């Protein structure tokens, strides 16, 4: 398989940072346009017992329509266009933390109507609830890291 030649020296060091900032910006606009930042719309999508709003199902679908071909292109290239290494996960084995964590995340998502991306976006645009959510989310993330360290020490 032909490998693209890394062009580390030809890429200005600040370009990847600009690119990722633009990516974050576009991502946020996408979330806003899609309705992912409207907590009630998310809850209306997840609430199968109420007045079901299925429109958010379309969001993941069209995202995949763009992303899946991009991934196939990535597989052929195997080298990031801006140089550097790749950090795409390769393990395929399911394990308990994956499923337990996903289960817990789903509960939280339905309770608050926010997932991480929309939460961060909403902090700048929206209500104080978003701040509360993101602060609690940060605490939850920190709590997880501490718990894992604690468990590791005990082994």
């Amino acid at each position: 398989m032909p490998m693209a030649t890394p062009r580390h020296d030809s890429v200005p060091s600040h370009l990847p940072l600009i690119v990722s900032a633009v990516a974050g910006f576009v991502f946020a606009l996408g979330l806003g346009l899609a309705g992912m930042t409207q907590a009630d719309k998310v809850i209306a999508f997840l609430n199968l017992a109420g007045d079901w709003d299925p429109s958010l199902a379309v969001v993941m679908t069209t995202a995949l329509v763009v992303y899946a071909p991009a991934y196939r292109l990535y597989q052929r290239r195997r080298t990031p266009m801006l140089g550097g290494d790749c950090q795409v996960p390769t393990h395929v084995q399911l394990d308990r933390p994956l499923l337990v964590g996903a289960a817990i995340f789903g509960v939280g998502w339905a309770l608050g109507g926010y997932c991480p991306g929309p939460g961060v976006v909403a902090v700048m645009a929206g209500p104080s609830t978003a701040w509360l959510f993101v602060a609690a989310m940060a605490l939850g993330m920190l709590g997880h890291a501490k718990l894992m360290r604690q468990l590791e020490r005990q082994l």
Partner: protein
Amino acid sequence: MTMHDLVQAAAGGLLIGAASAGVLLLKGRIAGISGIVSGTLFGPREAWRVTFVLGLLLGGLLLAKVAPSAVAAPADRSWPTIVLAGLLVGFGTRHGSGCTSGHGVCGLGRLSPRSGAATATFMATGFATASLVHLLGTGSA
């Protein structure tokens, strides 16, 4: 739900996919927001993650200016529920190594069995929780 909603949802999804594809092709990274946020806050702190978060925040600022109704808090969730929600999302995304963007878009996009299982799981508990909360009539949960 109107046609307008569907078109906007589709367009929003395209932007999300494009941004994620950009991160993959240009930087060789997964645009999983939970990982990006936790990395920025608690490390490992990679510069591209920090600027990605800045981009998210700037996007939020623009939305506030041009489409403030696009960002809205849940109408009937009490603040303790919001706090619980945040804690669960924070803990769960770290434990499960991802969220809707990392698993749902990037993971499914590369046909990852792990992400398939994770996505099915959080969608299931998401549906179940929202539906249960509604059925229990605790709108002010």
